[in-house]
């Protein structure tokens, strides 16, 4: 199964070298994405989701970061490629969209010019052909009157339009994999839904696999087939989306689900306060001993304080990093 995976991350460790010392922001992460699959990557801010995504395209500053492990894209270890080989994969086979649609487009060029630039970069078309294809991409992401909008500067577009343009740019070379790092976090809710619909539709049309990074569980529930939950640089749980939501194994996942307001919960579970997970994700410098979640875990036992938990692979294909299931 994993050999056929489009992207397989194996024992990824990302270390940041800072003035205060060196710290692992991602510490032994394993996951994979199948072809034409949407994988959800969930966790609080600072748990290493974005760092994992950025290390796939090796976008972290090379002087201050050290990446260990394997990132296999179609069997090729991206960590072993030279700059030129990597550049040919970026945007062409693996693409990425970012959280801030307001700042992810260059203010001095029109939207069309920027999309056309990416197309020309990888496909060697003439400027005219690239421009036409850029307009086509804008039409595909359902921007009204794309010919006119292509000539607009980013500041003339709304946040939702800019994110659509960004998606058009990221998908302009029909990548096999799209890394979407909180693509809708900065947008308002109705626009979020539109963008998500768009991404689902494009996935079907272009056969693109998506890694959707979000802390929005509702979004993940809608979009993803499988979910990887990260906490403090480690994968704490992996499960198909339905199982994860109905029967979360890890106390952290339960906490995440408990802290989401569900309309209608009052009727089924009685009047209950919204749950919260006490405390915050530990900083890289103050990682707790044993299980990294134990200071915030309602079910922490003595062993959790002392020993790091083992990864439990269950027969149903789910895995969890917790002493409760050992």
């Amino acid at each position, binding site marked *: 199964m994993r050999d056929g995976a489009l992207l397989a991350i194996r024992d990824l460790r990302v270390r940041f070298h800072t003035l205060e010392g060196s710290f692992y922001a991602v510490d032994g992460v394993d996951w994979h994405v199948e072809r034409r699959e949407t994988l959800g990557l969930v966790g609080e801010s600072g748990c290493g989701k974005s760092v994992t995504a950025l290390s796939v*395209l090796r*976008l972290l500053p090379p*002087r201050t970061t050290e990446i260990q492990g394997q990132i296999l894209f179609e069997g090729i270890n991206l960590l072993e490629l030279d700059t030129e080989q990597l*550049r*040919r*994969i*970026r*945007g*062409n086979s693996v*693409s*990425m*969209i*970012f959280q*801030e649609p307001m*700042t*992810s*487009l*260059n*203010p*001095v*060029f029109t939207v069309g010019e920027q999309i056309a*630039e*990416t197309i020309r*970069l*990888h496909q060697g078309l003439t400027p005219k052909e690239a421009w036409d294809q850029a307009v086509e991409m804008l039409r595909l992401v359902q921007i009204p009157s794309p010919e006119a909008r292509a000539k607009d*500067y980013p*500041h*003339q577009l709304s946040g939702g339009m800019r994110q659509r343009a*960004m998606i058009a*740019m*990221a998908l302009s070379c029909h990548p096999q994999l799209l890394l979407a790092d909180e693509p809708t976090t900065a947008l308002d809710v109705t626009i979020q839904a539109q963008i998500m619909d768009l991404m689902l539709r494009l996935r079907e049309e272009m056969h693109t696999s998506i890694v959707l990074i979000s802390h929005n569980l509702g979004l993940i529930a809608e979009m993803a087939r499988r979910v990887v939950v990260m906490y403090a640089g480690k994968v704490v749980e992996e499960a198909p989306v339905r199982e994860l939501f109905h029967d979360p194994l890890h106390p952290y996942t339960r906490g995440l689900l408990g802290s989401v307001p569900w309309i209608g919960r009052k009727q089924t579970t009685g009047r209950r306060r919204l749950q919260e997970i006490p405390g915050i994700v530990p900083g890289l410098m103050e990682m707790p001993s044993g299980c990294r979640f134990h200071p915030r875990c309602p079910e922490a036992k003595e062993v959790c304080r002392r020993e790091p938990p083992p990864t439990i692979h269950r027969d149903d294909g789910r895995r969890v990093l917790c002493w409760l299931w050992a």
Partner: protein
Amino acid sequence: MSEVNATTSLAGEEAVGFSPFRRGWMKLLRNRAAVFGGLLILAYLFTALTAPVLSPGDPSAPNLMASLERPSWKHPLGTDELGRSILGRILYGSRVSLLIAIGVVAVGLLVGVPLGLVSGYYGGKIDFFIQRITDMLLAFPGFLLALALVAILGVGLKNTVISIGISMVPIYIRLVRGCVLAVREQVYVEAARALGTKDVTILRRHILPNVLVPIIVQTSLGMGTAILFAAGLGFLGVGVQPPTPEWGAMLGSGRAYIFNAPHVATFPGLAIFLAVLGFNLLGDGLRDALDPRARG
């Protein structure tokens, strides 16, 4: 006060459909001081281009019979100690100073901007190396550095340009590097990298256009400074050599007659003043018009 704000924000809105540079241009035209500066520069360019028409004959041919004459119809600004028309020499001098100013700024831009871009974008050892050299150059006051370089290279037009140009290079390096440090952290630069854009293309298409505004402003101010420095070197006798008409040298030689023929030193000084004023006013206006923080 609120009315003023209302009109300026309106002006911003009506310009929404234009590129940032087009919008800056429209704001510039509303700034009276900048327009005045621009007119001074236009007049300066005009005289530089048409000097042989405005003042026929060799501006350096002496006519000792007419030395140190006061302003008259024949010589509107009088004559110098060798009887040459001061107006004619000022007109021709504008060509020399314009040539120097353009040359100096070209040296500063061609050397300083690429070094600043590389230094800021790549960082690390290469940044350290470039910045320490910049530190060394900036440790000297600019004019002193130019003077020292002239002492090494020798006098003359070409060496004047090179010396003043080199003394301006560190200013461009620092300016560009600082701007690049801010721009390279922008999401669109990261997005461009994520889409596989080459470093050269990122520098040229994504970073350079976004640091262009301070470069343009510095170029205008730098032209003024270059004229001033060139005049300073000329005044000290180590710049462009006689008999080439050069404003600083004219001022220097007129100094000896300051009491009995003050016009000899005054008019070249005025020419320097107006040219430098023009570039400085335009530079300030450009900064106000193009600075996104000062908008509205």
